């Protein structure tokens, strides 16, 4: 029999820590700080609207790009939140989660050999999606000393004549780093100067603490060269509804729509109706969740400080990224031993790129009680390690 598989697919490495994930998922009694999704239920208003839409028999396809009513609400929301105006019919496409948006944006924009700059540590899909779109991923390792922000120097160093796209993953999973207006200004300048495009993954935009999220699309000359990816999963606690959107120049959105139309048809109808309610009436619920995350964030920072675990202060998403280099083992070793001995699951930093070595991603999408229990065990574990030395 012939080899049934595509070389391109086979050559994509499965995530290096899949083995670790498999071990964790089999340990039923483990407590976990490893999940990248909110612990809150979707706000009831939204769920109720979803139920209602099913009762009304809204069980058919929507137009490919999504319900106009939803896109209108998205346009208003973005105008309000990031100060960029998008035309609901021309600049917005409703996708199956932010992930689909990333995929189709890369596929719509890349020709074979085009380079895509991917700052890491960052979400796991940018690199394989680039490869699938025949692009060449070029990693920019971010540094803790810069609070895992992307600097102008780091960006400039990696730009070649082949560079076409910069992926901008802020607020960042897994580091919790954000890019402020001041941080973004020199990046935007370079992007314009070198005629690049940006895929700005802003899925955690609702979750910043202290300063409001700023989109690179709001800088002069940037709206025309940015695809903003966002969605309902994190801010609205709607992961399982699989609903996101991409916004950008109509020339790109039109081509993305082609891929979306042939591969997906449309995002789930039920989710789209529910999300309209979310955008119209759930500002309070979103704010309450943000407040809870912020309290847990402060708690963790303080606890790590007390334990003497080095950690920069995250300002976004719901992750904290402590450094474990003092223990002289890899992130995966640390996470594996911690799991085996204390039955707590955390994610090794290397899951998000090689430069995540020496760090752990700890999610605070857990109740304060759960966090206390897990941190108690972490303290015992690292006390033991320090005595071993």
């Amino acid at each position, binding site marked *: 029999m012939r080899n049934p598989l595509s070389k391109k697919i086979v050559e994509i490495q499965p*995530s290096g820590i899949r083995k*670790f*994930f498999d071990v*964790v*998922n089999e*340990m039923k009694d*483990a407590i*976990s700080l*490893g*999940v*990248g*999704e909110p*612990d809150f*239920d979707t706000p009831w208003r939204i769920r109720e609207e979803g139920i209602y839409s099913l009762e009304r028999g809204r069980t058919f396809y929507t137009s490919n790009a999504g319900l106009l009513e939803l896109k209108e609400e998205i346009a208003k929301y973005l105008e309000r939140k990031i100060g960029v105006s998008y035309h609901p019919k021309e600049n917005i496409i409703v996708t199956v989660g932010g992930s689909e948006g990333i995929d189709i944006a890369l596929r719509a924009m890349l020709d074979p050999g085009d380079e895509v700059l991917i700052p890491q540590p960052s*979400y*796991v899909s940018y690199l394989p999606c680039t490869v699938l779109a025949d692009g060449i991923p070029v990693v920019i390792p971010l540094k803790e000393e810069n609070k895992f922000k992307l600097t102008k120097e780091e960006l400039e160093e990696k730009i070649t004549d082949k560079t076409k796209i910069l992926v901008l993953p802020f607020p960042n*999973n*897994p580091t919790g780093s954000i890019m402020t207006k001041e941080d973004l200004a020199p990046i935007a300048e370079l992007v314009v100067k070198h005629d690049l495009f940006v895929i700005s993954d802003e899925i955690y935009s609702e979750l910043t603490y202290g300063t409001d999220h700023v989109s690179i699309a709001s800088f002069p000359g940037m709206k025309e060269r940015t695809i903003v990816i966002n969605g309902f999963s994190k801010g609205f606690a709607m992961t399982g509804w699989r609903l996101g959107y991409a916004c950008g120049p109509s020339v790109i959105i039109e081509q993305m729509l082609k891929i979306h139309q042939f591969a997906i048809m449309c995002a789930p109808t039920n989710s789209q109706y529910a999300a309209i309610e979310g955008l119209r009436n759930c500002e309070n619920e979103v704010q309450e969740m943000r*407040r809870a995350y912020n*309290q*847990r964030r*402060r*708690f963790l920072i*303080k606890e790590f400080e007390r334990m003497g675990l080095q950690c920069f202060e995250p300002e976004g998403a719901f992750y904290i990224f402590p450094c474990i280099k003092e223990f002289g083992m890899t992130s995966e070793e640390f996470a594996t031993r911690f799991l085996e001995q204390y039955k707590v*699951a955390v*994610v090794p930093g290397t*899951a*998000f790129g090689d430069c995540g070595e020496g760090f752990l991603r700890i999610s605070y999408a857990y109740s*304060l009680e759960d966090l206390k229990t897990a941190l108690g065990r972490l303290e015992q574990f690292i006390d033991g390690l320090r005595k071993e030395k």
Partner: protein
Amino acid sequence: MNMRTEILRYMEKNSRVNLEELAVLLGTDEVTIANEIAQMEKEKIICGYHTLIDWDKTGEESVTALIEVRVTPQRDQGFDRIAERIYNFPEVNSVYLISGAYDFLIILEGKTLKEISRFVSEKLAPIDSVMTTATHFILKKYKDHGTILTPKAKAERVLVMP
């Protein structure tokens, strides 16, 4: 949102305040929290620290009734005087002045139906200004003070996910 509101939002859900912990959660220091709480107690913004109890789960017999009361307000004293006569009974839990078809809504706790009906017929109805009463007994409490009393199924989340 100012610090007072932040503290109240927290305490509304959990009055067992650990000052040290609350200071961390709200990003301030213990002294600030302690002072604000003391001040709010003084100003009667914080009026008490109660415990939310689901009596149904204890062996204790207890009955809660909502009573609608229509009254004729008295000259010069309006509703306040009548309200006072009612709320001074210790078994009366809450008294609200209400707009609409009736004037007061009273929440009453008693051990038995009999005890409550006796209160209505012997104490409440005979008050001069009281014209009519309508008593509703609570059959089941689903949610009280913003807390759902029926236990919720644990969320099914996978353990790790990038």
